[in-house]
């Protein structure tokens, strides 16, 4: 099952013509016997909103940590902007990794001054990024007095300093209230519209589905699927049917064209179909066998189901 899916969602070759922002080759991180990241090959093209989707503990943060130089890979390689793993690449990346980290005794503005000095960015741009996340009035208050939402916004402001080409966000909506979540998603959409490439790690499908153009699904440090969100969602169509006697139906449809897999779930038969499948033909075919359906429903498989299927044991 998993093998099928991987094949189905692997990048098609035409994607490689675009400009590559990030690529990883067999990236691996091992903590003793535990393989946190196990030979990951990723490729992120310019302008994409790239989601890294995986359950908690699947190696997302470890992967991003390696890409940002704070965790030493056990083996494998990564390259930003086709420029290898040089430290200088990080100045073109705005990052928010896990919770925001600041000097609590420094004000929001002073914290950003430190970041500006590190990135070699003019301090004159600090007010502008603070304004863009609505923190200008509180810029003189110590960061420890900020609420979680404000700290998150300060972290986003910090990520924007120096006008980065890439924004790398790890679980950016974690712990936020619904309004905070909406603000962060709005922020991502805006930033993407301005031409920035966005890499978003998340365990929330809905989030990835709503904001991402591309997604890779990882579990236990292994890549399960990679492709455009549209591909992943349209990837499989499912048909639900039900009749008085489902056993007979299951028998009858075995030879029908376009059916990949059929299984009974409760009182409904769920059929995975390919593009050759035609619902009207099925209906006709069954009625010719004197089987009359009580229920016929064609639906797109949701990313959530794909995800659960992919990550199932």
């Amino acid at each position, binding site marked *: 099952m998993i093998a099928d899916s991987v094949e189905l969602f692997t990048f098609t070759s035409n994607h490689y013509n675009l400009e590559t922002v990030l690529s990883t080759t067999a990236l691996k991180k091992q903590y003793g016997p535990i393989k946190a990241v196990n030979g990951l090959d990723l490729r992120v093209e310019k302008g994409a909103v790239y989601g890294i989707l995986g359950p908690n503990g699947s190696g997302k943060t470890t992967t991003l*940590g390696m890409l940002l130089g704070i965790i030493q890979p056990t083996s494998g390689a990564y390259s930003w902007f086709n420029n290898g793993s040089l430290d200088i690449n*990080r100045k073109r990346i705005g990052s928010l990794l896990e919770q925001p*980290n600041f000097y609590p005794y420094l004000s929001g503005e002073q914290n950003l001054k*430190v970041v500006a*000095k*590190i990135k070699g960015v003019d301090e004159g741009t600090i007010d502008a990024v603070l304004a863009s996340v609505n923190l200008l009035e509180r810029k003189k208050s110590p960061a420890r007095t900020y609420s979680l939402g404000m700290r998150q916004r300060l972290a986003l402001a*910090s990520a924007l300093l120096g006008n980065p080409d890439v924004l790398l966000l790890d679980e950016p909506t974690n712990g936020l209230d619904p309004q905070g979540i909406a603000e962060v998603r709005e922020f991502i959409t805006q930033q993407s519209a301005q031409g920035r490439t966005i890499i978003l790690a998340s365990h929330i499908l809905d989030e990835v589905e709503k904001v991402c153009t591309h997604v890779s699904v990882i579990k236990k440090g292994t890549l399960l699927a990679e492709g455009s969100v549209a591909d992943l969602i349209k990837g499989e169509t499912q048909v639900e049917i039900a009749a008085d006697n489902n056993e007979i139906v299951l028998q009858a449809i075995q030879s029908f064209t376009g059916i990949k897999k059929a299984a009974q779930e409760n009182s409904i038969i769920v059929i995975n179909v390919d593009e050759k499948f035609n619902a009207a033909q099925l209906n006709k075919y069954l009625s010719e066998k004197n089987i009359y359906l009580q229920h016929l429903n064609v639906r797109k498989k949701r990313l959530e189901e794909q995800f659960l299927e992919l990550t199932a044991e």
Partner: protein
Amino acid sequence: MIRLLKIELLKLVPYRTFKILFAIYLLLMTLVLLVGKNLGGSGDEGLTSANVLGFPNIWNYYTLYACYFNIILAILVIFVTCNEFTYRTLRQNIIDGLTRQEAVIGKITLIVLLSIITTIILIISGLVAGNIYSLPEDRDQMFGHSGFIFAYFIQSLGMMSMGYFFGTLFKRTGLAVIIFLIFLFPIDVILREGIFPDGFGDYMPVATYFLKMVPFPLDHTMSGGLEPTPAAPTALSLVVGAAYAVIFCGLGWWITKKRDL
């Protein structure tokens, strides 16, 4: 280098603990001179203020006491270093584009700057006290025995480097400070007296900094100021003291380079 120092100062100057510890340091540096001011009574083995605070002996006696205040600065460096781990800001700095090497060099330049400042404080207060208490005929020896000023500078560097090393190694402030203090007192005595009693132990880090580089002018004190104070620290003690500073910083750099943050 200047950029890295500026980054460190942005973090340090508004830090209240720094202001308090540095104020305590300044207070002690000046108040300790009062100890020498009231000498000359009976029971002082004949020493007078002029013996202790006059040139050039002041550089022997002042550095001898001032050395201990560097423990405060070493603990300050532990605070500053451990903060980067507890606030996870070292990690953040690296993510923002600082290299690990730059992070280490930033801390080292800060230590060098603080050492220069403490040495300047020592020189200024030493000159003021010396000019007040020197006998007229000793005035021309204002910069006699100035090797001890240099020893004090090396000692400042070394103590703060030690603090940097302990802070980097243990990451948590409380733990690092306690282990630093244990290293400062019992461990060093055990190494010196218990394990390496044959002279080698005298060149353990703490012994080098507190006993070898600024030795107590015993003959001068016991003779009531008749015997001279040592004219200079031994070259060996300076070399060993400087080497320890390099080793502590080097170890800090090595750990930072290896470690996942």
